[in-house]
């Protein structure tokens, strides 16, 4: 596609429920990143995928968070047993390859946990 696409745009869920967020990167981009942005704050790195290499999961805040990516296509970020502190905007970004450092961002998913 023309840009990075994220869905849903907004998600409201109840505490304790699982949620799945989707990111569709720009076609041909080998690397994909997930960031979390709490209200009024900066971007917090969660995880990144580079081709067929093992993902860098060093930013995942707890074992309730996981992400998958099939090849160089869609990625899903799953949050299990959501808590109110998980409320944030989840941004996805992709780059053509690891040597190209300019991030192309999606518009994010606003997650609200009630």
């Amino acid at each position, binding site marked *: 596609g023309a840009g990075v696409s994220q869905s849903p745009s907004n998600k409201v869920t109840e505490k304790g429920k699982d949620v799945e967020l989707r990111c569709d990167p720009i076609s041909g981009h080998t*690397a994909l*990143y997930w*960031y979390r942005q709490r209200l*009024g*704050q*900066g*971007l*917090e*790195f969660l995880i*990144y995928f*580079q081709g067929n290499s093992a993902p*860098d999961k060093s930013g995942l805040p707890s074992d309730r968070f996981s992400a998958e990516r099939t090849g160089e296509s869609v990625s899903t970020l799953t949050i299990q047993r959501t808590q109110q502190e998980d409320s944030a*905007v989840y*941004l996805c*970004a992709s780059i053509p390859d*690891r040597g190209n*450092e*300019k*991030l192309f*961002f999606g*518009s*994010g998913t*606003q997650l609200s946990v009630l």
Partner: protein
Amino acid sequence: AQTVTQSQPEMSVQEAETVTLSCTYDTSENNYYLFWYKQPPSRQMILVIRQEAYKQQNATENRFSVNFQKAAKSFSLKISDSQLGDTAMYFCALWGTNAGKSTFGDGTTLTVKP
């Protein structure tokens, strides 16, 4: 480890005037890139300007320019002839080539007043 610090949570400027946003960083890498991103209320992150650490010359993009002081690990953004459309949150970011990911500051909310 990479750190990025933006010490100005909020700033304002009159339309047509000049404003400077501050950013300091720390990294152990020799090869890195620095960025300023703009995030309007739409949440879409937009790349404003990019600086390669090995280049001494400060980057410029139309009304946007940077003051890159490598020894001081400082990377400020100057916006000249401010426009109402410049109102947004601005993030400073550092990309470490070995790290393979960007670290972001907490952002500066800029308001341009008519």
